C-alpha cells in the first residue's frame, strides 16, 4: 500500500523541479534581460527633482521706469499619498473651490504618483487662516509661496508688454523650453513672449532622495536659480498713459516711433485687457469672455486692423507728384467743390470749394480736388510705387502678432484680383486715401517717420537701442520734396484754416495730417449717425518739426473726423513724451547754470 503513493510523490517532485526551472527563467527575464530598465526605474523612484523658479527679469520703459514686478503669492497643494485621509468636499469648501473641479484636478492622471497636486493659486489670507486652523484635518496639504508677475500699469501697453501663461503642451515639446517644468509660467504674448528666453532666467534644480512617503532622505544636488535678465523697452510709459487715457472707451490704435532709430515709443491698441488676469493662470470663463467680447480687446489694432487712410494718404500723393515733377509748389488747381468724371461726381469735403489753390494750402486745408488732379497727373501705378516705397502695402516687421499687410492697389492688382481694367475714378479715390487703399496704424506711423527723417524706413523695434540702428531702407525721395511736404504738414497744425489745429502744442512744434476714412458712402455730420456708421478718424504727426524726435499715427475707430477725434490724442501723446524729456532738459540746464556760476 505504501508503494501506491511512491509514484504520486515522484510526480510531485518532477512538478516542483519544473516550477523551479520556470521561476529561474522568470528571474533571468526580469534581472538579466530587463535588468537595466528596472535598475533605472528603481533609481528614479528615489529621486525627486524640484524645479525652483527663477525670478523673471524686470521690464522697464525707455526711461528706466519699471513696468512689472514679481510679487509673492501663496498656493495650496496636496501630497497625493494622503488623498485617502482627506475629505475632498470640506477641502473644496475651505479653499472656495467647486468640488467637481477639485475632484477633476485630483483624478487627473499624473506621471509621478508622489508629486504634490496644485489645488489653488493666489490664496487669500482668509483662506490660509481657514486652512491653518484645520491643519490636522488635512494631512499632506502644503501651503507654499511662489512669485507671480504683476503688471504695474494694468491694461496700459498690454498689447506690447504682453502676459504670462502656463506653458502649453506643444511648447513643452519644443527644445527651446527643455528646461521649463510642465506647470511653469512663460511669456505667451507681447514682449514677454518675444523676449521670454532673456527674461526667463534659468530654473534652479534641487535633486533630493526621497522615500515613498515623500520624506526627504538626503539632498543630492542643489543648483540655485539664475534670475532672468532685465529688459528695457523702447516705449515711454508717460506717452503711453497719456494716449490711452484719452482713448477712454473708444477703440483705436496709436503707434509712436523714433524716426531716427525705428524704436517704438508708444504702442496703443484699445480696448485693451488686463494682463494681471493672466499672471496666475486665466480661468476658462475669463478667457472666453475676453475672446467673445464684441469690442475685441485681444485684437491688436495697431497691426491687425486695416482701413482706408483717408486724407492722411495725401502725404503720399503729394510726395509722388512733387518728386515725379508733375506738379510744383506753384501748380494751381481750381476747386469748385468737386469735379465731374463721366456721370460721376467726385466732391471736395468743402462743398463750396477752396477756389484756386496751390500745394501748400491744399495740404493745410486738405483739398480733395487738388489731389484728384495730382493723382491723375502721377497715375495710379506711380502713386502705388511711392506708397510702397514709403512702407505701405507690406508688413512693417514688428513681430508682436501676425501683422496685416494692408493694400495698395494698382492696375496690375486690379487685373489680377478683379480681372478688370483700372478706371480713372478709382485713381481719384486712391489719391485721397479712399476706395481700395487699406493701411494699418503701424504702417502710417512708419510713413510719417520716413517723411520726417528724410526718407528712411527703419525696421521697428520695441527694445531701447543702445547701439546704432540697423541700416535703414531708403525710400528714394528727394529731400526737397519731403521738405515741401513737411512744410505743408506744419501748416496743417499751425496755420489758420489748417485741419489739424487741435494738435497744436505750446511745448513743441507739431506737424501732421488729418484723415477721415468713410465707413458709408453718404457724407453726413458724423455725430448724427449711429456709432458703427461713423467715419474712422486718422491723424499722423511728427515733432519737433525742425529736428524730429517723434513720429506717430493716431487712429480712432468710428471716431468721426480725424481733426476732431484723433488730433487731440496725438497732441497729448507728443506732449506726454516731451514733458518727460523736458524735465530732463530742465535739470540738465540747471546743472549747466550751476557750472557756470561756479566758473564765475
Amino acid at each position, binding site marked *: 500500500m505504501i508503494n501506491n503513493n511512491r509514484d504520486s510523490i515522484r510526480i510531485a517532485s518532477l512538478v516542483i523541479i519544473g516550477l523551479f526551472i520556470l521561476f*529561474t527563467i522568470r*528571474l533571468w527575464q526580469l*534581472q538579466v534581460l530587463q535588468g537595466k530598465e528596472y535598475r533605472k526605474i528603481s533609481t528614479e523612484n528615489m529621486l525627486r527633482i524640484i524645479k525652483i523658479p527663477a525670478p523673471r527679469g524686470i521690464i522697464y520703459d525707455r526711461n528706466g521706469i519699471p513696468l512689472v514686478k514679481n510679487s509673492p503669492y501663496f498656493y495650496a497643494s496636496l501630497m497625493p499619498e494622503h488623498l485617502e485621509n482627506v475629505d475632498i468636499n470640506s477641502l473644496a469648501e475651505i479653499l472656495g473651490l467647486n468640488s467637481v473641479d477639485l475632484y477633476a484636478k485630483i483624478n487627473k492622471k499624473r506621471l509621478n504618483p508622489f508629486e504634490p497636486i496644485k489645488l489653488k493659486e493666489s490664496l487669500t489670507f482668509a483662506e490660509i487662516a481657514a486652512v491653518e486652523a484645520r491643519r490636522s484635518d488635512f494631512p499632506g496639504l502644503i501651503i507654499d509661496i511662489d512669485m507671480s508677475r504683476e503688471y504695474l500699469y494694468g491694461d496700459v501697453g498690454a498689447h506690447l508688454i504682453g502676459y504670462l501663461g502656463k506653458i502649453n503642451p506643444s511648447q513643452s515639446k519644443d527644445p527651446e523650453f527643455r528646461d521649463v517644468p510642465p506647470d511653469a509660467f512663460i511669456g505667451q504674448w507681447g514682449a514677454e513672449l518675444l523676449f521670454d528666453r532673456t527674461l526667463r532666467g534659468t530654473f534652479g534644480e534641487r535633486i533630493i532622495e526621497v522615500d515613498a512617503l515623500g520624506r526627504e532622505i538626503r539632498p543630492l544636488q542643489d543648483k540655485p536659480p539664475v534670475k532672468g535678465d532685465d529688459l528695457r523697452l523702447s516705449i515711454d510709459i508717460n506717452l503711453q498713459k497719456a494716449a490711452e487715457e484719452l482713448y477712454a472707451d473708444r477703440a483705436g490704435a496709436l503707434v509712436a516711433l523714433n524716426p531716427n532709430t525705428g524704436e517704438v515709443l508708444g504702442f496703443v491698441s484699445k480696448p485693451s485687457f488686463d494682463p494681471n488676469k493672466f499672471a496666475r493662470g486665466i480661468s476658462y470663463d475669463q478667457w472666453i469672455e475676453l475672446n467673445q467680447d464684441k469690442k475685441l480687446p485681444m485684437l491688436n489694432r495697431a497691426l491687425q486692423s486695416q482701413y482706408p487712410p483717408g486724407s492722411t494718404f495725401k502725404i503720399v500723393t503729394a510726395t509722388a507728384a512733387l518728386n515725379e515733377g508733375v506738379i510744383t509748389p506753384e501748380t494751381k488747381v481750381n476747386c469748385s467743390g468737386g469735379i465731374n468724371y463721366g456721370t460721376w461726381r467726385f466732391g471736395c469735403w468743402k462743398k463750396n470749394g477752396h477756389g484756386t489753390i496751390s500745394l501748400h494750402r491744399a495740404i493745410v486745408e486738405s483739398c480733395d480736388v487738388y489731389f484728384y488732379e495730382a493723382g491723375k497727373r502721377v497715375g495710379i501705378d506711380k502713386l502705388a510705387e511711392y506708397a510702397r516705397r514709403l512702407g505701405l502695402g507690406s508688413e512693417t516687421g514688428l513681430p508682436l502678432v501676425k501683422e496685416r499687410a494692408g493694400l495698395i492697389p494698382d492696375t496690375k492688382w486690379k487685373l489680377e484680383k478683379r480681372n478688370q481694367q483700372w478706371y480713372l475714378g478709382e485713381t481719384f479715390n486712391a489719391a485721397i486715401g479712399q476706395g481700395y487703399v487699406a493701411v494699418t496704424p503701424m504702417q502710417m506711423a512708419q510713413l510719417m517717420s520716413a517723411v520726417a527723417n528724410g526718407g528712411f524706413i527703419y525696421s521697428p523695434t520695441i527694445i531701447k537701442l543702445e547701439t546704432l540702428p540697423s541700416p535703414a531702407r531708403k525710400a528714394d525721395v528727394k529731400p526737397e520734396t519731403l521738405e515741401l511736404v513737411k512744410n505743408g504738414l506744419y501748416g496743417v497744425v499751425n496755420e489758420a484754416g489748417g485741419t489739424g489745429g487741435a494738435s497744436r502744442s505750446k511745448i513743441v512744434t507739431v506737424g501732421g495730417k488729418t484723415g477721415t476714412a468713410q465707413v458709408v458712402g453718404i457724407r453726413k455730420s458724423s455725430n448724427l449717425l449711429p456709432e458703427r456708421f461713423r467715419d474712422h478718424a486718422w491723424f499722423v504727426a511728427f515733432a519737433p518739426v525742425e529736428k524730429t524726435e517723434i513720429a506717430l499715427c493716431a487712429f480712432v475707430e468710428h471716431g468721426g473726423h480725424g481733426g476732431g477725434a484723433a488730433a487731440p490724442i496725438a497732441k497729448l501723446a507728443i506732449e506726454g513724451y516731451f514733458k518727460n524729456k523736458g524735465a530732463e532738459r530742465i535739470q540738465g540746464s540747471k546743472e549747466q547754470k550751476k557750472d557756470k556760476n561756479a566758473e564765475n
Partner: protein
Amino acid sequence: MLKIDRRLIRNFDWATFSLVILLSIIGIMTIYSATRPLLPNEQPAFHIKQIYWLLIGMSALFLIVSFDYIWLSRFASPLYAAGIVLLLAVLIAGKTGMGAQRWLNIGPLSFQPSEFFRLIFIIFISRYFITVQDRMSLISMLKSFLMFTFIPLVILIKQPDLGTAIILLIMFLSISLAKGLQKKVIALLIILGIISIPFIGNIFWEGLKDYQKNRLIAFMEPDADPAGIGYHINQSKVAIGAGGFLGKGYLHGTQGPFRFLPEKQTDFIFAVFAEEWGLFGSVFLLLVYLALILRGLDTALKAKDEFGKLLASGITFMFSTYFFINVGMTLGIMPVVGIPLPFMSYGGTALLSNFIAAGILINIRARRYELFY
C-alpha cells in the same frame, strides 16, 4: 522522564535543520535590510523580534523532535477541535488588519491561529486518511471534505483569510493525492475543475472584497494603473529586476527601505532579497528551498508508516505551496495573495509554526528505522 535515544541523535536530520536555519538567518538579514532606518530618529526592531522568535522556534523544533510523532496521531482530534475553536475566536474577537481579521490578542501577544491551524489540519487529515483502506474513492473523498475541510474553509473565507483558505484546499487535495486516489476520481476531479472554472470564478469574484478584486485585476493588467492597484506587483518587479545579475549588494537595496515596495519585510521579502543579491543570490535561494522540499519528499518516501508518509508529504506540500505562491507573486506570475515566504518573512507565529513543521519532518526522518515501537 524524557529519554533521548542515541539513535535519535545519530539519525537527526541535520540537512533539514541546517536548511531551515540558513533560510531563517537569510530572512533576518533581509528583514533588517528592508526595514533599516533611513532617518536617524527611526528605530525599527523587526529583525530583533524575529531573532527572539527564531530562538523560540528552534526550542519548539527540538521539543517536537524529542517525542515520537505517533503522539501527534493520538492528539489529532483534540488539536483539530482546539484549532476550530481558535479560528472561531478570531472571527468573533479578532482585530482587523488590512480589512481582514487574522490576529488574536492574548495579553501582550498577538498571534494568528490560522498559521497553526494549517499544521493541525495536515496532522488531522493524515490521521484520518490512514483509516481509509486502499486508494480513496469519490465517496470517502467527499466525506472527508465535508466533514473536516468545509467548516474551517468557510471560517477562513469569512475572516477573510483567502490565502490560508486556498492553502487549506490545496493541502486537502495534495494529501489526498499522496494518499492515492482511484483513477476515476482523478479523472472526475480534472473534468470538474475545468467545468467549474468560469462558474466558480463568478461566485468567487462576487464574494471577494474590493482589495482582493483589485489584486486580481492588477495581476491581469499590472500596467493599467501603476500608482494604484498594480503598484505592488510593479514595484516588486522593479526591485527584482533592479538586482540585475549580481545584485546591488547587501544593505544597498532601495525599493524596500525607501518603502516603494509595500509589505517589504513580510509578503515581498523575496523581492528585497533579489534586489540586493541579484540573479546569483536568487537562484541560490531557490536551490536552498528546492533542497528543503526535495528532502521533505524524500522523508515522505522513507517514512516508516503511512501516517509519517502523509504527514511529511503534507508538510512539504505546504512549504512548496507557500513558496511558489509567494515567490510567484513577487515575480509577477501569480496573483497577489497575502501569504508569507516560509522561514524568511517577518512574523512570529508563522516562523514558530514552520519550525514545528520542520521539527515534525526531522522527527519522521529520524525515526524511519524504528519499525517496532
